């Protein structure tokens, strides 16, 4: 029976997956993807069916576990933010080689304009690269329907598929009408077991088959109900609108678009439909959220007599998310009357919460570091990245998950002293542990500070994989017990904290200082529950 719900794009995807007979979700939190897994965790059907929904340690372990579900014939969903695709890339690309048995959908939420990210990479490139189909919805209702279709498609074509959302789709709410609830799959094994053993002899055979299959995925995209070529009276311009870009186009034409439009929400890019558009329109405008993937595909090296406009020729901004306004300008429509920008409003950047343990840690670290002018501090991804801003200015680098540990090793190898790494507990178990093993094996002269707030803070307080076991993990990796120290970051402990940091900077080997106090946001929630 159809019901109406007011859902974020993330939630529409989650509910669609549950209704499509999902057996498990595998994910590491990351904005703007986190709400997909949280919605599944809190949904009654998840409890009723006892579905897997615990957080994974990182995107690679998530992807691999989901591939195991698919091998066993059931349906699995993997969710991550765009940069998580880099972490799971090995598993992702090779999952196209094994193919899927049970439906396998990988959801990447891209963050153009970098609202909460360090780059604006476009996950559609990964689908191309791996020779995988890709879906990109344009509305919350379409997202709900599309995830069901994606699972069916994955099973029918025996291939994992990529679902790509961007921030505005992930974090925008609209009314969604739901459909029927499908049962889960029973366990059943792949028809072709050789395909799942990627020895070169098998992989070479499979590679040829995948290339042949990819042509079939292209045929499917030409026929897809999600890719629509619509007519318009004015042939002076043809528009290709991918995913959510379609909405910004239509926003500017409330009475209907006068130009022919190709709406694209399923890839491989439907070249046949594009050729039909280009047969009528000698100038094409490509509207796509993220990087100019389609535009590059269309504007090649040779003069085809077709002019392609988009992000590469300056018709649209080269970077940043699309808006109704930049699309309006690209269409040559006059700007609406508007007020001038405020003369008095100033930026209000985010900051660490008052009372946060990271604050006390940075205060103590800075106090010690000021006596070591040659010291360099390598930080990492999380709330504590805000320690780069005033008043702390506490470190020199922040690159990607886990890089604090390994960059400090490289700097120490190059003669930098003291070399200090700062990482959060969740980031440490995500991608810092292997780096610490490298440091131990190389007897690197580094001091690793794990600022442990017992949660994954920046994304809203999800469980952290190593909570309660960080000391055991460090000792297991070979850190010397006398150089594994624990401090509690509070103003009254500053003298002790500074003493500990000072001692470990002076030790010429691997030191780990665990700086532990619960995140004040999760502590408040835990107190309210009691």
């Amino acid at each position, binding site marked *: 029976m159809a019901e109406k719900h007011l859902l974020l794009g993330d939630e529409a995807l989650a509910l669609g997956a549950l209704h499509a007979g999902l057996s498990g979700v595998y994910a590491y939190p990351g904005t*703007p993807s986190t709400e997909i897994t949280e919605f599944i965790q809190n949904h009654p059907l998840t409890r009723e069916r006892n579905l897997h929904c615990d957080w994974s340690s990182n995107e690679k372990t998530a992807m691999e576990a989901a591939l195991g579900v698919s091998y066993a014939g059931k349906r699995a969903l993997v969710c991550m933010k765009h940069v998580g695709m880099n972490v799971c890339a090995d598993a992702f690309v090779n999952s196209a080689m094994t193919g899927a048995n049970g439906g396998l959908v990988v959801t990447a939420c891209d963050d153009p304009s970098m609202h909460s990210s360090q780059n604006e990479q476009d996950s559609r490139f990964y689908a191309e690269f791996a020779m995988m189909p890709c879906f990109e919805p344009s509305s919350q209702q379409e997202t709900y329907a599309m995830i069901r279709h994606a699972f069916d498609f994955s099973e029918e074509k025996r291939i994992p598929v990529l679902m790509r959302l961007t921030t505005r789709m992930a974090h925008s709410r609209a009314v969604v009408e739901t459909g029927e609830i499908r049962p889960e799959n029973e366990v059943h094994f792949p028809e072709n077991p050789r395909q799942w053993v990627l020895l070169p002899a098998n992989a070479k055979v499979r590679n040829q088959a995948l290339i042949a299959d990819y042509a079939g995925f292209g045929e499917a995209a030409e026929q897809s109900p999600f890719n629509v070529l619509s007519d318009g009276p004015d042939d002076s311009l043809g528009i290709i609108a991918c995913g959510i870009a379609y909405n910004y186009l239509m926003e500017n034409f409330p009475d209907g678009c006068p130009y022919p439009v190709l709406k694209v929400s399923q890839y491989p890019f439907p070249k046949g439909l594009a050729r039909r558009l280009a047969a009528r329109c000698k100038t094409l405008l490509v509207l796509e959220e993220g990087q100019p993937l389609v535009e590059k595909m269309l504007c090649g090296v040779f003069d085809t007599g077709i002019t392609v406009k988009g992000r590469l020729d300056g018709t649209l901004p080269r970077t940043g998310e699309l808006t*109704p306004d930049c699309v309006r300008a690209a269409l040559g429509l006059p700007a609406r009357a508007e007020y001038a920008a405020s003369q008095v*409003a100033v*930026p209000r950047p*985010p900051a660490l919460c008052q009372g946060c343990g990271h604050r006390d840690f940075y205060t103590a670290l800075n106090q010690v570091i000021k006596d070591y002018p040659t010291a360099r501090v390598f930080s990492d991804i999380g709330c504590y990245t805000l320690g780069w801003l005033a008043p702390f200015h506490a470190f020199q680098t922040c690159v990607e998950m886990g890089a604090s540990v390994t960059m400090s090793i490289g700097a120490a190898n190059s003669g930098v002293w003291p070399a200090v790494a700062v990482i959060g507990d969740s980031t440490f178990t995500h991608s810092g542990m292997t780096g610490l093993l490298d440091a131990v094996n190389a007897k690197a002269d580094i001091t690793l500070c794990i600022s442990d707030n017992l949660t994954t803070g920046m994304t809203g307080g999800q469980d952290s994989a190593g909570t309660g076991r960080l000391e055991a993990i460090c000792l297991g990796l070979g850190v010397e017990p006398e150089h594994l120290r624990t401090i509690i970051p509070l103003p009254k402990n500053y003298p002790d904290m500074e003493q500990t940091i000072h001692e470990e900077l002076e030790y010429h080997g691997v030191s780990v200082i665990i700086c532990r106090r619960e995140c004040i946001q999760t502590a408040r929630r835990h107190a309210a529950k009691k």
Partner: protein
Amino acid sequence: MKQDIILAGVGGQGILSIATVIGRAALDQNLYLKQAEVHGMSQRGGDVQSNLRLSSDPIHSDLIPRGGCDLIVSLEPMEALRYLPYLTPEGWIITNTTPFVNIPNYPATEAVMAELHRIPNLIAIDVDTIAKEVKSPRSANMVLLGATASVLRILDPDKLRDGIRTVFGRKGEAVVDTNIAAFDAGYEFANQHLAR
């Protein structure tokens, strides 16, 4: 009919619960709705906004175009000004008057208020004081919603009251009552302001 709203404030002030009540009421009235929210890094004490679009016809864009916003509703006066280029020339600003100062270079309050008063359609309201007056000190955001209801023509104020009952219902009757009292006080204030 359509009305486009930008809800503004500082991370943690509670703009999302205003959005939730409006969303509930819009769903009850069978309106189309799109609401783009801010999650993630900016929630840590930075500026936050939500684009909320209500219409009797289907809505395309999740984002409001510049010069297209009918109402800027803000829990903080400087934050109301941040979105001026989005306001239509006939648009309204409904804002709290109490500054939230968590940055060292916050402008002089007089300068903020002077710029606000240049907008012809302004409802400036001290929501914290009014909330305290009706013994609902923790419901300042519902005072602001009540003030907004006076110019939010697309929604019936009674539907908004129903929305408050639904959204806060699981927290008990007392919480519902204080939120309704706050809403009514804001609604009353704005109507008196408009009558002047």
